[in-house]
């Protein structure tokens, strides 16, 4: 899976959509971290084995 690098405009749009009214300088200050963070998100999204199914958390037969 390939995750593109994030740019300042995209980061600004995402933050604005989340309700943050930040200045260009404030967005610029977050940008280097956003690029590193994207690589972490990419790593988390690598394919997983079947036992990682979160449905296993809920046991239908036992109702819990």
């Amino acid at each position: 899976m390939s995750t593109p690098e994030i740019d300042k405009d995209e980061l600004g749009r995402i933050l604005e959509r989340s309700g943050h009214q930040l200045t260009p300088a404030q967005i610029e200050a977050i940008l280097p971290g956003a690029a590193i963070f994207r690589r972490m998100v990419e790593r988390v999204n690598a394919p997983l084995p079947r036992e990682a199914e979160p449905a296993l958390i809920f046991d239908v037969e036992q109702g819990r």
Partner: protein
Amino acid sequence: MSILTIAEAASQIAARKLSPVELAEAQLERIRRLDPAIDSFLLVTEERALADARAAEARQMAGTLRGKLDGIPIAHKDIYGTAGIRTTAHSKLLEHNVPTRDAHTVKKWADAGTVMLGKLATHEFAFGGPSFDLPWPPARNPWNREHFTAGSSSGTGAAIAAGLILGGTGSDTGGSIRGPAALCGIAGIKPTYGLSSRTGILPLAFTLDHAGPMAWTAEDCALLLQGMAGHDPEDPASVDRPVADFTAELGKGVKGLRIGVVRHFYETDHRASDATRAGIEGALDFFRREGAEVRDITLSPAADYHAVGYLLMVTEAYTLHAPWLRERFTDYGELFRDRVALAATVSGPDIVQAMRRRRVLCLEMTAAMENLDILVSASQAGEAPRIADVPKWANMEKPSFTMPFNVTGFPAISICTGYGEGGLPVAVQLAGKPFGEPTLFRAAHAYEAAMPWRKRRPSMCD
């Protein structure tokens, strides 16, 4: 008065050879003299300390001491709620916050007779630091005040190393107890998830937060954890099971223990310094020599654990802080606000994937430990860097050695393994099975007792 460990002070108090009031007064004098150089305290509660000490001394004279923590001077990280005493999270947003009740663990330590000296510096809300744009300066490393303490339990690490307190509270979401323990040359344990209550402690990330003690020695950590652990119905993660005797295995040595070394964490995934690796090898040599079985094991890359833990940590923190981040963005320090704002870029599927991967990693570590008692790896990559040189994104750029045990909830302790080229401490991390704290204390205590490191304090203490 020389600097005592908790075990030493407790023994002398029990024998009526040490006055809790005189001990408290000596510690307060040390704080007045030394803390201006290291800024470990945000608030010194002198009246409260002397009142606590007088009460302990009355029990001492009456022969009604409550145990080994009675009369012991401690302080709390300033995210631990203290009734009637300012609790700020080192943040402008809570600059005037005064809780109406003690955190569960604060009350437990008070009930055990501890003497509270004050509230300690932290990274803002236990995450953003070292920061120079907050109402108070960051704590500095007593081994060299130009150097970092690590965080977020920075004040606790600095105050213990400087001998200002005998023990203190920390919290650990990705390494915030073990990091400062490593860089300040003390001991600090992140207990098993659920062993100690988080009620009344300002949260960072619900599923990763752990409350734990820090002290000069592993033995002292065992004594402090004994006074801290236990079921609390108000914390949904708190486990309802009998609390072990954490000192029960001290003195048993390490013979027969099965130790796995996660060498790839600190040799290839994130290569630690020569001094750190030499310190770990020295500890492994000691364990082998004393009859432990030592062998290398392989887990997923440290970066896998780090990515899962970091993504969940900032997202859970964002869940708590989003309203203030929207309305009071610049009231936060730059480091906290910019790191936590990253969570706005995370999608729902990303979170589900992180939770799924977390389960895989928990299963992996459980399987790896089936025939082991202890896992060994680094605690920090090297000696403390200069505080002015810590990069803004340092905690993201390289995988953490401590985060794997927040992701899985397994207990882990950091202990000092000597000093590097710069004269600053280096450390090793020992991790155990869930609720395996007695075994961790056993191994850590055996190592500390055999090594000279606990006999040396920072030169500022001379």
